[in-house]
């Protein structure tokens, strides 16, 4: 097992400079207003993301896990400024995205892309595969018609599809193939950074690996940086260099992938890992830690440590005092009053 404090995995592709930070997220909050009442005034907020900070280094894959509704997608979109964050800053390559004008931002969009979970709704059903990818090039005035067509072919080949697929429409493809098309579209502009919002969750197990492999190959080839959002723990562990764990709009733990999975500091992380069924029938009898209850509402999150309502180790302090997100050693951060060892 990899126990040293190396920041990147030994097998890591290209050689990411440890210090070089591509995306820096600082205390980002995203509160969605809830309107109502007599005058349709704001009555409260869904605190989807409630003060999250982390850095993504050049060339690395940063994994983000957590239960449904904990704010993973929201933070992903806030980073790309597809949602305007309520507060906080996002720096991309040293530039504050939230200071950019609309036109600057549109140019900047070449650099950062998004890949979606749902391969069905993420492609415009009325556009053929070729048109879908070509549009992206056209918006950014990349080459003339024939040059663009050539590039589309290149891209399709790159993601492992035949050029004759160009004229086909999304509905004629399987989920895995569509996901490849989505990847090709994202790659069209030679981005540096891609947010992958559960890119394989909707795919069959046998196809998942194909897509994950493709993503890894592309990363190697182009020196891409990924933010990989998923609730599939095994996949995240496989693909990520570092992993952040979110709970109710907050980051509760962050660390090297193996380190985090082997030695979770936060009880929530541990519960999450324990819940993951092990594909070995011989181990089924083993006692499991079952996390009771559901995630509380993000409109009025619990006081103190947000996890205390479900935490098997919670004590009085957890209810009152919000734990700080601190380095527990070797860049392994956790927000817990009683971190595990």
């Amino acid at each position, binding site marked *: 097992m990899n126990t040293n404090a190396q920041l990147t995995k030994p097998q890591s592709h290209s050689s990411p400079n440890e210090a070089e930070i591509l995306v820096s997220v600082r205390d980002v909050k995203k509160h969605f207003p809830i309107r109502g009442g007599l005058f349709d005034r704001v009555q409260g907020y869904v605190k989807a993301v409630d003060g999250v900070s982390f850095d993504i280094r050049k060339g690395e894959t940063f994994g983000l896990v957590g239960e449904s509704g904990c704010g993973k997608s929201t933070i992903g*979109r806030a980073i790309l400024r597809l949602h305007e964050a309520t507060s906080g800053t996002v720096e991309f390559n040293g530039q504050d995205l939230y200071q950019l004008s609309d036109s600057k931002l549109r140019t900047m969009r070449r650099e950062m892309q*998004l890949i979606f979970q749902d391969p069905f709704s993420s492609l415009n059903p009325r556009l053929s595969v070729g048109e879908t990818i070509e549009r992206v090039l056209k918006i950014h005035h990349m080459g003339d018609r024939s040059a663009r067509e050539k590039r589309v072919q290149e891209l399709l080949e790159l993601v492992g599809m035949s050029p004759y697929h160009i004229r086909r429409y999304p509905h004629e493809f399987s989920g895995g193939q569509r996901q490849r098309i989505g990847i090709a579209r994202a790659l*069209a502009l030679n981005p540096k950074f891609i947010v992958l919002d559960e890119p394989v969750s909707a795919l069959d197990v046998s196809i998942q690996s194909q897509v994950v492999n493709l993503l890894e190959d592309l990363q190697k080839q182009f020196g891409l940086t990924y933010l990989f959002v998923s609730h599939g723990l095994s996949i995240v562990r496989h693909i990520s260099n570092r992993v952040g764990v979110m709970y109710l709009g907050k980051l509760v733990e962050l660390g090297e992938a193996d380190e985090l999975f082997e030695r979770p500091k936060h009880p929530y992380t541990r519960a999450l890992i324990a819940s993951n069924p092990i594909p070995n029938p011989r181990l089924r009898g083993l006692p499991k830690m079952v996390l009771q209850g559901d995630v509380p509402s993000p409109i009025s999150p619990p006081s103190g440590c947000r996890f205390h309502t479900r935490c098997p180790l919670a004590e009085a302090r957890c209810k009152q005092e919000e734990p700080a997100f601190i380095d527990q050693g070797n860049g392994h951060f956790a927000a817990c009053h009683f971190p595990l060892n």
Partner: protein
Amino acid sequence: METRSAAIWKRFRKNKLAVAGLIIFALLVLMAIMAPWISPHDPEVFDIMESNLPPSALHPFGTDSYGADILTRIFYGARVSLSVAIIAMTFTVTIGVLYGAISGYFGGLVDNIMMRIVDAIQSTPTFFFTLIVATLMVPGMWTVIIALTVFGWTRMARIVRGEILSLKERDYIEAARASGESNASIIFYHVLPNMIGPIIVIATLDVAGNILAESTLSFLGLGIQPPTPSWGNMLTSAQDLPTIMDYAWIAVFPGLFIVLAVLSVNFIGDGLRDALDPRSKK
């Protein structure tokens, strides 16, 4: 590899009703264009002495209460009825779609204000205001078209807006935004093509509505002036007891052509909607 229009045509051709609709409609249009050459009689000359004659060799569809040859009037009436219906539809579709698209896409306050205007227009008694619009201008075909347009676009706007509200949550819209596409081109490339189905349905309904509305306007003296015929006109002037009871053909033939036009347009619409959708069966 076939071109897109060829593919659409191929899908369209598969739909027998749609093809039948297209053929009928083409014939109707041809009829309108060819009216001066194929009409058995002069549309301007008629003898009241010859009124209310049943169909005969001389007058295949009979004559009306003015003694005019009904077949001739149907040929000429096609010109007015079809142009009014189609041009007004084009206008209502264009305005309604743009308006609805902008309102729905931008949402929020813009949407709120734009939709209140639609509400306001929709809740006012159209009849009266059509009358005003029409009387502010010289009566004629264009008056009718403008009157039909002014009060006809709101339904389209409403439907389009509703569709957009749901469409804009789709991931591919977000993908387009993420790749730096501007709002206008998102609307044109990603949103509108995906709601062509409902747009076509409303548009074809509008064609039917326009053919009939033209007659109401003309009846009030605001539209097409007699003796220039229109189908709606012919049907309206047949709304009289003895005509319906004793000279049914005066009502039946124009009625038949209205139904024919309405049906064919609707079948074409259905066929087109399916053909334009790459997901539909080949």
